[in-house]
C-alpha cells in the first residue's frame, strides 16, 4: 500500500500521524481530550503507584523473614502494611485496567471517535492526580497505621496518624472512579458504531460496563463513609463510639458495602481482558459469549449482596451472617461459569503461547485457587478459624495479584503494539511471565499454610516454627519482584528500539486491530460499519487472514 499523510489500515510501520505525534507540547498532553493520551498518562501514574506499593511490600516481606519484630517495630509495621494496602487497592488496582486499558480501548472497540464525555475523562485524571498527591503527601508526613480498612474506633479515636488526610485523598480519588464509570456507561450506550449491537461487543467492553455499574453504585457509599469517619475523628460526636450509643459495626457495614463490590471492580476488568486473550490466542470464537456477558452483569449485581462476609466475627448477628454466607456461595457461580467457558474455548483451539497467553493461562490457575479459597472463607464455621490469619491474605493476593495484576500485565502486553506501535522482546516477555508465575506461587502458597497454622495477619512477629514458610514466601517475593520489574525494562526498551508492529501483528479479528498502530487521534479514518460477530476467525468478516499475512511478510523489515 502506498503511504500517504493520512492513515491507511493494513499498513506496516508506524504511521507518521498518530495520536502520539498529534501535538507534542506539554500543554497538548495536559489539556488533551484524547482518551488515548489520558490512558497513557494513567498508565504512567498507575505504574508509579504500583512501584511505591511494591516497595512497601518488600518492607513487609523483609520484616517477616525473622520471627521477632526486628527490622520494623510494630507501629511502623502497621503503617507499612496499611500504606501497602491503600496504595495498591485505591491507587493501583481500582484504576488500573479501567483507566488504562478501558480508556484506551473502549472507544476503539466500539468504533467510536472518543468517549462520550472527553472533558469528564480529563477531569477524572486530574482528580486522580489530586487525590494521589494528597495521599502521598500524607504518607510522607508520617502515614496511617489503621489498616486500609480504617476500622473504628481505632481510626476515629485512638490513632495518632494522618487518618483524615489519607481519608480525604481516598475520598477525592473515589470521584475519579465514579466519573470514569459514568463515562463508560454513557459511551457504551450511545457511541457504538453502526452495526455494533450489544451482542457483537467484545467481552472486554461488557466487563468494563459491568465494572462501571459497580463503580457508580458503590463508590459514593465509601465517600460518605470516609466523610463520616473524618467528621467523627474531628468532632468526636460518637456515632461509631459504643459508650455514647454509637455503633462501630455501622462503620463496617457502610465501609464494606463499597469495599466488597470494589473487589469486583478490581477483578471484572481482568476477566474481560482474559476473555479477549483466551479467545484470540486460541484462534477460536469464545465459548458461551452470552453466558460470559451476563455473568459479568450478574457478578456486578450479586457483588452488592455479600459484604457481610467480611464481618462474620465482628459482632453482626448470626442470622445476617447466614444470609451473607449463602449469598457468597451464590456469587461464586457466575465466576465459575466464566472459568468453564474459558477452558471450553481453549479446547481444540489453535493456541499461540505468546506472552499474553502465558499470563492468561496463569490467571486461570491462580484465580481458580483464589476464588475457591474465597468460598472456604465464606463458610461461617471455617471462617472462625481462618479469619484475620494469613489464609485471608493469601486468598486475596491470589485473586488480586494472581487474578487482576496478571490479567493487567497480559492486557498491557497484548495491546502494547496497538498503543505504541512497537513489539516488545517476546523472549524477555516469556521469561518474566514465568518468573511472575513462579515467584507469585512461591510467595503466596506458603501463606495458605501459615494461615491454617494460625499465623495472624498484620503482625510483625510470629512464632519461631513458622519461620521456614515465611522464608519461602520472602524468597518468592524476590523472584516476583524481578519478574515485575523486567517488563518495565523491556517495554521501555521497545519504545526506543522495538520492531514496528503493523496494525494487526497478531492477525486478530477485533475492531481495534483494524486501525493503525498507534491509532490516529480520531481512532478510525472512516467510521467502521460492523457486520461481523465478535471473535469471528473466518473470512466472511472481511479479515482475510492469509492475504494479510502475505502482506505483512512482504512489507515488514
Amino acid at each position, binding site marked *: 500500500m502506498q503511504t500517504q499523510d493520512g492513515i491507511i489500515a493494513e499498513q506496516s510501520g508506524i504511521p507518521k500521524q498518530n495520536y502520539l505525534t498529534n501535538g507534542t507540547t506539554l500543554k497538548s498532553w495536559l489539556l488533551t481530550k484524547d482518551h488515548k493520551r489520558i490512558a497513557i498518562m494513567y498508565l504512567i501514574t498507575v505504574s508509579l503507584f504500583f512501584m511505591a506499593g511494591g516497595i512497601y511490600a518488600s518492607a513487609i516481606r523483609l520484616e517477616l523473614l525473622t520471627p521477632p519484630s526486628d527490622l520494623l517495630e510494630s507501629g511502623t509495621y502497621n503503617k507499612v502494611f496499611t500504606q501497602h494496602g491503600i496504595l495498591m487497592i485505591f491507587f493501583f488496582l481500582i484504576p488500573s485496567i479501567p483507566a488504562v486499558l478501558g480508556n484506551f480501548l473502549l472507544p476503539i472497540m466500539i468504533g467510536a471517535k472518543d468517549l462520550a*464525555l472527553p472533558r469528564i475523562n480529563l477531569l477524572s485524571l486530574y482528580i486522580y492526580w489530586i487525590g494521589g498527591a494528597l495521599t502521598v503527601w500524607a504518607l510522607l508526613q508520617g502515614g496511617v497505621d489503621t489498616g486500609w480498612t480504617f476500622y473504628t474506633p481505632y481510626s476515629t479515636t485512638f490513632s495518632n496518624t494522618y487518618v483524615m488526610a489519607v481519608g480525604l485523598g481516598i475520598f477525592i480519588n473515589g470521584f475519579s472512579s465514579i466519573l470514569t464509570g459514568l*463515562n463508560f456507561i454513557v459511551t457504551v*450506550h450511545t457511541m457504538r458504531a453502526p452495526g455494533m449491537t450489544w451482542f457483537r461487543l467484545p467481552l472486554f467492553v461488557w466487563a468494563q460496563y459491568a465494572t462501571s455499574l459497580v463503580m*457508580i453504585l458503590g463508590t*459514593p457509599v465509601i465517600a*460518605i463513609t470516609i466523610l463520616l469517619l473524618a467528621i467523627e475523628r474531628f*468532632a468526636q*460526636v460518637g456515632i461509631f463510639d459504643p459508650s455514647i450509643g454509637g455503633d462501630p459495626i*455501622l462503620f463496617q457495614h457502610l465501609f464494606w*458495602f463499597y469495599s466488597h463490590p470494589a473487589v469486583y471492580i478490581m477483578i471484572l476488568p481482568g476477566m474481560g481482558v482474559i476473555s479477549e486473550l483466551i479467545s484470540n490466542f486460541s484462534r477460536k470464537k469464545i465459548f458461551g459469549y452470552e453466558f460470559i456477558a451476563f455473568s459479568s452483569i450478574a457478578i456486578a449485581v450479586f457483588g452488592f449482596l455479600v459484604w457481610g462476609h467480611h464481618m462474620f466475627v465482628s459482632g453482626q448477628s448470626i442470622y445476617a451472617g447466614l444470609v451473607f454466607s449463602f449469598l457468597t456461595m451464590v456469587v461464586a457461580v457466575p465466576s465459575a461459569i466464566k472459568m468453564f467457558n474459558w477452558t471450553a474455548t481453549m479446547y481444540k483451539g489453535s493456541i499461540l503461547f505468546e506472552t499474553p497467553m502465558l499470563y492468561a493461562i496463569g490467571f486461570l490457575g491462580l484465580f481458580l485457587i483464589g476464588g475457591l479459597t474465597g468460598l472456604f472463607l465464606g463458610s461461617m464455621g471455617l471462617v472462625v478459624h481462618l479469619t484475620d490469619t494469613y489464609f485471608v491474605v493469601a486468598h486475596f493476593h491470589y485473586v488480586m495479584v494472581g487474578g487482576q495484576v496478571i490479567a493487567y500485565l497480559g492486557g498491557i502486553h497484548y495491546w502494547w503494539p496497538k498503543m505504541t506501535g512497537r513489539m516488545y522482546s517476546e523472549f524477555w516477555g516469556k521469561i518474566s511471565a514465568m518468573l511472575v508465575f513462579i515467584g507469585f506461587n512461591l510467595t503466596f502458597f506458603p501463606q495458605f499454610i501459615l494461615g491454617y497454622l494460625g499465623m495472624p495477619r498484620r503482625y510483625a512477629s510470629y512464632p519461631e516454627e513458622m519461620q521456614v514458610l515465611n522464608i519461602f514466601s520472602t524468597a518468592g517475593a524476590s523472584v516476583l519482584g524481578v519478574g515485575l520489574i523486567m517488563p518495565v525494562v523491556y517495554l521501555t526498551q521497545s519504545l526506543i528500539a522495538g520492531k514496528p508492529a503493523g496494525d494487526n501483528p497478531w492477525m486478530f479479528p477485533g475492531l481495534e486491530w483494524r486501525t493503525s498502530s498507534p491509532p490516529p487521534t480520531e481512532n478510525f479514518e472512516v467510521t467502521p460499519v460492523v457486520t461481523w460477530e465478535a471473535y469471528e476467525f473466518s473470512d466472511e468478516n472481511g479479515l482475510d487472514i492469509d492475504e494479510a499475512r502475505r502482506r505483512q511478510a512482504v512489507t515488514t523489515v
Partner: protein
Amino acid sequence: MASHAENGKFHYHEPGLQHQFEDMGQQEESVSIGMWVFLVQEIMFFGGLFTAYLVFRSRFPLAFAEGSNHLDAFWGGLNTLVLIVSSLTMALTVYYAQRGNRNMQVIMILLTMAFGATFLGVKVIEYTDKYNSGLIPVTGWNKRANEAQPAVEERAGAVMPWETAVAAAESGSEKKKPYINPHGEFQWNYGRHVYDYAIEKEKSGKPYLTESERVGYFSNGVFDPNKYRDKIRIFYFIYFVMTGLHALHMIVGLGLMAWLLFVAWRGDFSALYYAPVEMSGLYWHFVDIVWIFLFPLLYLLGRHFLH
C-alpha cells in the same frame, strides 16, 4: 462555531455539537444518560447517610423524637415550600428555553436562584438558633455563656395559625430558661417529654422502648439524663450532616444556576440546543427530592408524641 473548515473540507454541524458526536441527537442522549448516572450516584451518596439515620432511629426512636421536636417544623416546612416553588420555576426555565424565550428564561432562573438563596437563608436562621441553644453536637461550636453574663433571651417559637400569641408564649416558656454553656458543648435543657410519654404508655402494658433503649438510657437501672442526651446528640449530628450536605449541594446548585444565567443571558438556548438547561434542571430537582425526604424524616418525627 456552526461550521468550520477541516482538511480543506467544509463541515457544518449544529450549534453546540461537540466533535466526538455524530449529531445533536447522540449528544443529547449521551448528556442525558450521563446526568442521570450522576444522579444515581448522588442518590447512593445520600443513601449512606439515610442508612445511618435508619440504624440509629431504629435503635433510639424516643431520643430521635425528642431531638426532632426541637427542630422548628415551621422553618422546615417553609423551606420545603420554597424548594417546591423553585422546582416549579426551574421546570418553567426549561419550558422557556425550549421555546427560545430569552427574557422569560432569565427571569425564571433569577427566581429559582432567589428561592434557592431563601432556602439557604432559612438554614442560616435555623443553624444560628441551634448555635444559640447549644444544640450543635461538636464541643466548642456552641454559643458560650457563663453565669456572669445575662441570661440569653431565646427566640420564641413562631406563632402557629391555630394558636394565640399567649398560648405560643406559654408553650415556649421553657426556652426562656437562662442558658449557661461556658465550654460551648452540646446541651440538652429541654426535658424528656417523649420519654415520659413512652413510660406512661408502657404502664398500660405495650412495650414502647427498644432493646437498645432499655440499655442505652439507663445507668444502674435508673434513667440517666446524660446518656439520653448522648443519643439526642447523635440525632443532631445526623441532622447537621444531612442538612449540611444538602445545603452544600444547594450552594453548588446556585453556582450552576449562575453559570446558566450567564449563558441564557447570551441567548444561546433555543429549541435546537437547550440540553444544559434541562440537565441543570435535573440536578436542581434532585436536590429538591432529597429535601422532600429529609423534611418529614428529620422534622416531623415526634410531633405526635406531644398531643
